[in-house]
């Protein structure tokens, strides 16, 4: 008898419990209401000859190798026609004080062709980061942040989603895959929503700002950081470009 009750209680616990900051959305229920209508956009340039990115040996991962028509390379420095992608740009000064409402929409990062896509992603403190696997094989998402809790989880099959929430700002949380040593990604965890990641064409846009003067910082995983200031009027737009050297 006693055993029956204890077992039932255990199952009840298991059904409800299970610990960590897993499923579920971020803090806010409603969409972020922008503080203003101004936007800052710009281009991230790369000056000099683009360095060659190292080739990745995917010979022992045929399902991933098949997704790359040319020999896969590790896009550490991703330059197209002098434009630099995967630069994390955020406002570091000039903002009115928070707290800022957290979007219920998750930020997303995928594992596809044995690469993290996108390589750099921004997420707010308290916002869900949805990690997905588009490869039909095991990926191991390992993050060893300095300000946030480490996690080390698996996604053995395609179509899986794991949700994580970061509780402290951190520039940048490094992601690895232990199964595929070349796989890296970076998440910028910010207290406010004013960040962007430069695209393949080097462009970025940060919108929803009130009028003001802002200090911005652009971060690249190997090329360091660059700073810049810009002033923008209410409902207006301004441009700020960054250039990283080779």
């Amino acid at each position: 008898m006693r055993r029956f009750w204890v077992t039932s209680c255990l199952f009840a616990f298991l059904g409800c419990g299970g610990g960590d900051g897993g499923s579920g959305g971020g803090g806010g229920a409603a969409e972020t209401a922008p503080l203003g209508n101004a936007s800052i956009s710009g281009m991230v340039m790369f000056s000099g000859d683009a360095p060659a990115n190292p080739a990745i040996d995917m010979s022992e991962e045929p399902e991933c190798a098949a997704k790359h028509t040319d020999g896969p390379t590790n896009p550490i420095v991703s330059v197209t026609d002098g434009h630099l992608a995967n630069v994390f740009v955020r406002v570091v000064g000039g903002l009115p004080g928070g707290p800022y409402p957290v979007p219920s929409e998750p930020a997303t990062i995928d594992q596809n062709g044995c690469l993290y896509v996108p390589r750099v992603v921004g997420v707010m403190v308290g916002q869900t980061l949805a990690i997905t696997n588009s490869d039909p094989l095991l990926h191991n998402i390992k993050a060893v942040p300095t300000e946030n809790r480490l996690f080390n989880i698996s996604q053995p099959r395609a179509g899986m989603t794991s949700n994580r929430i970061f509780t402290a700002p951190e520039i940048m949380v490094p992601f690895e895959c232990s199964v595929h040593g070349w796989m890296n990604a970076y998440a910028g965890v910010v207290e406010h929503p004013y960040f962007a990641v430069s695209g393949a064409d080097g462009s970025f846009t940060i919108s929803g700002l009130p009028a003001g003067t802002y200090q911005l910082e652009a971060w690249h995983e190997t090329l360091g950081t660059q700073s810049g200031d810009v002033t923008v009027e209410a409902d207006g737009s301004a441009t700020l470009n960054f250039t990283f050297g080779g």
Partner: protein
Amino acid sequence: MSWILPPSASTFAGEIDFLYYVILVITGIAFVVVEVGLLVFAIKYRARPGRKAQYIEGSTKAEIIWTAVPAVTLVIIGLMSGGVWNHIKGRNSIPPNAIPYEVHVKQFEWNFTYRGPDGQLGTSDDFIVRNQLHIPVNRPVELQLIAEDVIHSFFVPAFRVKQDAVPGMDIRVWFEATKVGEYEIACAELCGLGHYRMRARVFVHSAEDYQQWLSDRAAAADEE
């Protein structure tokens, strides 16, 4: 369902397999003696009305026999095993002409470092191949296992090779493949969630094919 070992392809596999079969026969005999004995006793000496058990407290002679026979048998097995063990794992038994490789073992990959065309490990023409070990047939090879995070274990079932890779320790393992072909490498020490997928392959080439493969790799490396 069988107790027959799978096919092997290394020089010392034969010694290991022989020892295994000797033990199989000896333990098989002991197994039959005990199990049949138990069954026979259970049937023959089951209680029936009018029977009585025989009040026997023991037999020194029996004790001596069944102490000495197992002891002698086990000592023999031990002596047979000692030589083989020393030959495979002894610190001084690595053949001096073994081709050296480095294996950087991590969660959850095997990165094999080849010495490159100059024939020396630790020089700039070394190259790394992930999860593929290419070796020539009928040549001893020596792998230095360098674990980078936790304990792993280099296991090639077909070669009867197994050696733990321990972070912080200089671990060497040697073997000599006897048949051209492709064999699997598994990790045989729980090393985390990807332990089950920590698979690599050994490619045993003929001497010519091995040279060809090496030069193809060197050429490809030059192009990069």
